[in-house]
């Protein structure tokens, strides 16, 4: 009996701990200034970084978010300490770039990555439950090619510099963002809402290190549950919701469950569903959600670094062509057409990368 308890703690302890810390951190960062229900959102924050670099012109979402830097560097330091840091890459980088862009376009239709979806659920936003349904459907679709031999082919060992280049670039531009006024910076809107830089950085460093240890992944949790009936990673998912819910009860004195009037969210159910379905399908093909790609990039995986560039480019496409949603609803651009094309691309990538004879 004692032994069983130990192994439960060993198996689930780290994932649950990471989930609880992320949930608590999200509530804390929101309290300290980050946008509502957006203590952590990888899609939103990469979109803000894309804006800070001037890749898109949406003046309300431009800020070089320190959380992204902290997550990557936290993972990198932890991986170096535990000797798990490994420079590797070369697994269909351009396909990953395209998938990354599609995942971001879907995420910005919904208004959040899978992590923010979970945080929104914990904040009482029922639109995110619709998103979750879409996310699950997307993941289930993505596991079909996986079962039929889908592969982006293996990664190979790379030079140390190849593995370090992305974290270094991220830190260099972070220093530029703090020390100069070269980067764009929102004065109103979500991009202007920010927790103090140092707090954001330290919290993200801790979360990044924990995520490296626990491999927490929103897409992986559901994928493992669907494919292997393995519920380890999904407990992290649940832990985040619990922590955010409890945190909101303590800090804000209550949680209002509703579809209408939720912060930085819209109530177009169809597009909330489709947006997250695209994120789920794309994430399974990529082998991890946006948060997980940050952690892998920190561990020296340059394929994940390319995927992150795909996210950043996807964010620019979203805002430059009116595909990103806002609290008012879906974007004014050709959202429906792009979504259809996006799903067709996902289908082509899924089918064309099935290994023969598998």
């Amino acid at each position: 009996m004692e032994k069983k308890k130990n192994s439960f703690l060993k198996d689930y302890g780290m994932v649950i701990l990471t989930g609880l810390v992320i949930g608590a951190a999200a509530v804390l960062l929101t309290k300290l200034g980050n946008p509502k229900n957006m203590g952590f959102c990888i899609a939103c924050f990469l979109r803000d970084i894309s804006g800070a670099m001037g890749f898109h012109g949406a003046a309300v979402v431009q800020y070089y978010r320190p959380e992204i830097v902290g997550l990557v560097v936290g993972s990198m330091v932890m991986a170096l300490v535990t000797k798990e840091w490994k420079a590797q890459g070369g697994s269909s980088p351009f396909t990953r770039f395209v998938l990354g862009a599609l995942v971001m376009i879907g995420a910005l239709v919904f208004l959040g990555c899978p992590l923010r979806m979970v945080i929104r659920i914990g904040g009482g936003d029922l639109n995110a439950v619709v998103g979750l349904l879409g996310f699950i459907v997307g993941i289930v679709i993505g596991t079909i090619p996986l079962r039929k031999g889908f592969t982006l082919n293996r990664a190979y060992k790379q030079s140390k510099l190849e593995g370090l280049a992305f974290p270094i670039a991220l830190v260099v531009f972070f220093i530029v963002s703090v020390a100069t006024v070269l980067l764009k910076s929102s004065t109103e809107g979500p991009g202007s809402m920010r927790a103090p830089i140092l707090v954001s950085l330290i919290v993200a460093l801790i979360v990044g290190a924990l995520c490296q240890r626990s491999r927490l992944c929103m897409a992986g949790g559901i994928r493992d549950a669907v494919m292997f009936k393995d519920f380890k990673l999904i407990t992290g998912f649940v832990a985040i919701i619990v922590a955010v819910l409890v945190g909101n009860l303590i800090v804000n004195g209550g949680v209002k469950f509703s579809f209408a009037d939720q912060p930085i969210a819209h109530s177009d159910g169809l597009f909330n569903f489709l947006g997250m379905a695209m994120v789920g399908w794309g994430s399974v093909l990529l082998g991890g959600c946006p948060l997980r790609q940050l952690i892998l990039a920190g561990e020296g995986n340059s394929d994940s670094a390319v995927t992150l560039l795909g996210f950043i480019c996807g964010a620019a496409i979203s805002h430059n062509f009116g595909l990103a949603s806002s609290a008012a609803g879906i974007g004014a651009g050709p959202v429906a057409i792009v979504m259809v094309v996006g799903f067709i691309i996902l289908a082509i990538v899924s089918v064309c990368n099935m290994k023969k004879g598998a």
Partner: protein
Amino acid sequence: MKYVATFYTHVSAMMSQRSLAAKGIRAKLAPTPRELSSSCGTCVRYEADDPSYSLLDSDVEQVASLDDSGYRILRQFS
């Protein structure tokens, strides 16, 4: 003896599981245990008299044995 083989790709794990099973070896796909890797890929858990390297796909990363004391890495592939 119980063994765990980890792979560079999911499809490689799938094909290895099939060729092990075709030889009558009990083998199943599972998430890669954290102890063996920080990646979140798919592994094959199997019970055999020996590690049966020749039945594993060429994209195998490592093979470990598993007993009450835990995992012991037997061989790393590159």
